[in-house]
Every structure is written in structure tokens, then in C-alpha cells.
């Protein structure tokens, strides 16, 4: 017994020494990783603050030793560029309605899947899970035709509808999972009191679903804000979102680096603010999205 304790005690000392070096090593390694992960965004930010003349002749890291060259000029130019400001406005006009619609329509359907009984419910739920993974490429050609026939091709409404439709499977899935956890007695009590389904939904389910709805909203917001492909196909130069406006500058990468870097960073600001403010909800959406 005594021997064992000693052996254990010895190992603890050895472990402590090992642990100390291990910890230092882990810390140094992760600091390196963190720096490596930060450099790309940081480089873009510094580039966006350099005059075009500097950016075409030397790398952004030169600005670290010559901070005098940094200027807000690129951003001021950008904000006076009506193409960019319009496209930023378009992005907002696409993102806000499609986020609201996805949450609302997804919550209605999620509630029905969670607490109502109708024929084919389980079968339809499996359908929703199948749709979760459908690549949106399969819808591009027919929807473009359909929008053309309806005369809404290129309109903000068309883009919003497309984003909403492809956001719905995830929304239904996430909210249905969350709503099933609401205690049945609460809903039953309301029913006994004679509350209508709509009243139960709007007064009990939606408020209780707050965290899940926040997660979904953040997720949908970021997804729509950052979209390029849908905007590329379904918008015109007057309705294009910021991502499409920036990509049209890509053809001449080096010569346009002032517009590109400042524009790219400008397009990142809102998502980054949303991310840092609500990252807990964003993580929850991802976790819930893949179940467990």
C-alpha cells in the first residue's frame, strides 16, 4: 500500500514536469495556429487601408513598419461609389425579409410537425431531412425559367423567395426538434382553456422557442448575407447584392485591389459583428442542425 503511494507520488512529480513542458508546447503551438488563422483577415484589413500605389508595388506587411501610409481613402471612395452603396442596400433588402420569412414559415411548419397529427407526417418529415442536403444547383435552371415566365427574374422578391425556400428544410428541422421539447402539459392546458392553435403558436410556442429562433435567424442571416451564387444568377446590376458587386471587380485583381480589399472587408463587417455578438446562438444552430 505504502509502496503504491510512493510510486504514484513519483509519477506525479514526473508528470508535473512533463505536464509543464507539454503545456508550454501546447500553448506555443496554439498561439502559432491562432496567428496563422488571423493573418489572412488581418492582411486584407491592412491592404484595404493602403493606397493603391503602395498595394501594387509592395506587400501589406510593409505597412507595419510604415504606418504613415495607412488611410481611410479606399473606404471613402467606396462609400461614394453608388454601385457599392446600392448593392449594400440590396443585400440588406434581400437578407432581412428572407431571414424573417424563413423563421416565420419554418416555425409554423415546425410546430405542425411537432404537435399536430396529420396523415403522412412522419413521411413528410423524412422528406424534409432529404431536402436538407439537396444541392441548390438542381433548382437553378427551372427557377430561372419560372421567374422569367412570371416576370420577376432579377427582382429582389425572386431572390428572397429562393433563399427562403432553400432555408426552410433546415428551419423546419431545427425548430421542430426544439418545439418537441416544450412540455406537452403547457400546450394541453392552453387547449383546455379554449385557446386556438394560432393563439397557442403565437403566445406560447414562439416565445418559448426564443433561443432556437435566434439560432436559426443568425444562421440564415449569415448564410444569405454571404451568398454569391444565387445573387449571381437571379439579380441584375440594379438588384445585385454586395458579393456580386465585388466579384465583378475580380477580373483585374491587382489593379483593383483597393476596391476589392475595402469592398470585401466592408462586406465582412456586418457578419463579423453579428458573429461576435451572437456566436453562442450560431454555434447552437450548427450543433442542432447536425442533431445531438
Amino acid at each position: 500500500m505504502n509502496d503504491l503511494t510512493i510510486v504514484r507520488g513519483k509519477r506525479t512529480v514526473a508528470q508535473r514536469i512533463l505536464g509543464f513542458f507539454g503545456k508550454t508546447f501546447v500553448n506555443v503551438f496554439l498561439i502559432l495556429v491562432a496567428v496563422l488563422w488571423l493573418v489572412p483577415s488581418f492582411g486584407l484589413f491592412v491592404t484595404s487601408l493602403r493606397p493603391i500605389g503602395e498595394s501594387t508595388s509592395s506587400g501589406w506587411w510593409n505597412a507595419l513598419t510604415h504606418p504613415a501610409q495607412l488611410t481611410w481613402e479606399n473606404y471613402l471612395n467606396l462609400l461614394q461609389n453608388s454601385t457599392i452603396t446600392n448593392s449594400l442596400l440590396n443585400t440588406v433588402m434581400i437578407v432581412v425579409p428572407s431571414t424573417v420569412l424563413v423563421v416565420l414559415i419554418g416555425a409554423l411548419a415546425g410546430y405542425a410537425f411537432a404537435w399536430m397529427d396529420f396523415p403522412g407526417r412522419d413521411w413528410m418529415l423524412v422528406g424534409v431531412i432529404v431536402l436538407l442536403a439537396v444541392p441548390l444547383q438542381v433548382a437553378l435552371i427551372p427557377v430561372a425559367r419560372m421567374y422569367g415566365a412570371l416576370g420577376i427574374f432579377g427582382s429582389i422578391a425572386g431572390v428572397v423567395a429562393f433563399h427562403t425556400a432553400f432555408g426552410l428544410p433546415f428551419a423546419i428541422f431545427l425548430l421542430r426538434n426544439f418545439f418537441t421539447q416544450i412540455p406537452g402539459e403547457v400546450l394541453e392546458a392552453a387547449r383546455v382553456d379554449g385557446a386556438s392553435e394560432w393563439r397557442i403558436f403565437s403566445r406560447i410556442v414562439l416565445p418559448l422557442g426564443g433561443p432556437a429562433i435566434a439560432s436559426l435567424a443568425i444562421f440564415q442571416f449569415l448564410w444569405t448575407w454571404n451568398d454569391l451564387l444565387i445573387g449571381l444568377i437571379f439579380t441584375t446590376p440594379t438588384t445585385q447584392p454586395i458579393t456580386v458587386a465585388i466579384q465583378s471587380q475580380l477580373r483585374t485583381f491587382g489593379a483593383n485591389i483597393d476596391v476589392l480589399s475595402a469592398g470585401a472587408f466592408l462586406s465582412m463587417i456586418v457578419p463579423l459583428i453579428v458573429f461576435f455578438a451572437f456566436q453562442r446562438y450560431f454555434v447552437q444552430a450548427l450543433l442542432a442542425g447536425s442533431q445531438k
Partner: protein
Amino acid sequence: MATSVVSPADASLRESGSQPLSRRGRRRELLIAAGFLAPALILLGALVVYPMVYTLVRSFYSARGDEFVGWDNYVTMFTSDSTFTAIRNNIIWVVVAPVLCTSLGLIFAVLMDRIRWSTAFKLIIFMPMAISMLAAGVIFRGMFQEDPEIGVVNAVVVAAKEAFSDTSSYPGAKPRPDVGVSVDRDLISADASLAPGESQDFPLVGIRVTDLPDDSTQAAPAPAASDGQITGTVWLDFVPGGGGVNGQIDPGEAGLPGVRVDVVGPDGVAGSAITEADGTYVVEGLDPGEYRVALPAANFTTGASGVPWLSSTFITAVVILSYVWIWAGFAMVMIASGLSAMDRTLQEAARVDGATEWKVFTRITVPLLAPVLVVVFVTLIINVLKIFDLVYVIPPGNAKPAANVIAVEMWTVSFGGGNNQGLGSALAILLLVMVLPFMWINVRRFKAEREG
């Protein structure tokens, strides 16, 4: 999100079973359910399900859609060069990117457990998930510019090359005049033609003694060249403190190690060698004939050149790297949440029993994490299959064909000028087919969870 064994709707049905609903009440209930579902079903039906069927049918019709062509579009898909490259690249993506993201995520998640600033670390690694792939594309295209003065990656590569390479750089070196060696724009070459078995020395000046590499030693005469060889010495023809004969190897004169020597025949470079510490070189394996010996300009220019990252050769690797930068954080966060939900007593017990950290990791932690790892992996595969933005944004025009993937090719042929919506539809269906197995995994997992 655990789902109870009896789903809530069943439970409510059973409760109301004691007082069976009238047929009218039941119809009313169904109508309400339909009302709640209608907006979602209409949108999903019109913009997802119907288009899916339409695309499937459309894929059997010609470019303009007026002629039934059977499997032609699918045949074209696998025989045309650009679509075939796209399919091949997609396979590379699916094999490489999810594995890289998941393993990095796993390493980060496990190590993150042991540091105090794990919250900050998590935010830093996870942050790229918030920004658009377009912005990420602009970032990576900038970082991997070929010019080391502009692209940060090549700036590092060139700096490392200069620090570690065996070919040293001797900027400003010139041949000693009047010894039969001349210089043309940094290329130093012998004036006379040589046959194998002969020697050519290069007495150079214009290098400061303090700039000599540490491994430089006293210059030595080259060994006599045998058949198929050309030998010689490259040295600094200067004795510190004076003395010595110009063009001859004198005591105190240093050999120039790491200089590349090319032997140029009528068909180009026939052989080359790198000089030793004493400046000697031996080029071997030469056929009989007339050769010129030269020291290429790379030995004497200041900067090594950058790697052409954005050329066809490396482009897919670079784009995959940018994807990993974004999605490793996703894998890390998912795995970290799996870790935090894990009961650690097994690991503790194994440690007490003397298991090494590595054993604990591979034998206990990873197997326990397996369900989470599968979820991450499947999610990444589904995501990688339809990769578009990064591949659309990062490659410059001349590397676009080499970087092609299915989603980009689908866009190009149907919207980006190809004007062939038949082939575009077939490509979209191919994507759908590739996703099917992973859909099936998702459905099975969902059903298994419901059954408890």
C-alpha cells in the same frame, strides 16, 4: 436534442383518445394543420421539389431543350475535357477537404482543452465561418500572389529559401577580368568551349569576405576531370590583406560553396552541379561533344523567385487550403462540444493506470467521439460536393480550367456563356446523385434517433 420515444403528437392523440373526436372536429384539425404547413409546402414544392423533377427531365433534352437526346448529356459530361476535369477535381475535394478539416478540428479541440485562453482561440479559428467565401477568396488570392514582394506566402517562402537553401546567393559577384570568363546580366559563363575531361575555373570578385557563407573553406584546385566529367573551382579570387596572383588559387582565398554550375550543350543544359565548401564542382555523365560552362543568374540575383501558387499546378491545393481555413473551425466547435459532453472518468482511469496521453487519445477519446466525427464528416462532404464560391473567385483566368469543379462547370455551361442547359441540368443531377448516399445516412441517423 433528444427526441422522446413517443413523439408528442402521438401522445396528444392518445390522451384525446378517451373522448374520440367527431369527424367534423377531425376535419377541422386537419385543416388547421394544413394551414400551418401550407406556406412551407408551397415554397418547397414550387422552388425545390418541382425544379428537381424538371431538372431531371431537362437533363435528357438538348442544349435548347427542343429535342430529346437520351443519355447524350451524361455521355458528354464524362467525355468532354472541362467537365471531366471538374468531376475529377470534385472527387479530389471530397477525399481531401473533409479529412483535413476534421483532423485539424479534432487536434484543435483536444489541445484547446489544456489552455486557459480556449475561448479566444475558439473565436479566432471559428471566425472565418462568419465571412463570405467571396471575401475569403479575395483574401487567399491576394496571399498567394506569385510576386514575393506582394504575396505574403511567397514572401515567406523566398525568405526561407534564402535562409536554408544549399544554393547560396552571391549578389554582385563578377568574374575577374581577363581570365576567359565573362558576365552578361548576372549570367557568368566561360568564353571557351570545353569537351568532357577538361576543367573550367571561375575566379570571382565583388563579394565581401564578410558575406561569405559560414561553411566556406580554403579554395582548392578541382580534381582532374575523367571521361564524361567537367570539373573546376568557383572561388573568391581575393586574399584578405593583399597578395596572390589574379586568376590563381592562392592560400587564403575562399571557395564559394553552393553555386550552381550548368554545362550547356547544343540542346540546352546537359548537366549541372553545386559547388562544395572549397568551391570545387564535378559535372558528370556528359556525352562527348562541345560544351559551355556557365553559372546561371540565379546564383547572383538578390531574390529567389516565388512559387506560382495560382498556376494550374497548385491552384486546387490553394483553394482547398482556403476551404480548410474556413471550415476547420466548424469541425473544431462541433468536436469540442462533443468533448465537453463526454464523461471523462474513463480517461482519468486510464491515466491512473499509466496509459500515455497518446494512448488515451487514440484508444478512448477518439472512439467515444466517433458519432460526432461522423456527423462532422458527413456535413462537410455534403458541403464540399457543391463548392462553388471559392473556386469561382480564387483562380485567375488561366488557371480556371485546372481548378474547375462541378458546381462551377454547371454555372458556366448553363449561365456563364455556355448556353447549354441540357448539359447544365445533367451536371446538377450528377451533384444530386453524389449527395444521395449522404442523404441516406442522415435519414437513417434521424430514424435511429427517433426509435431511441
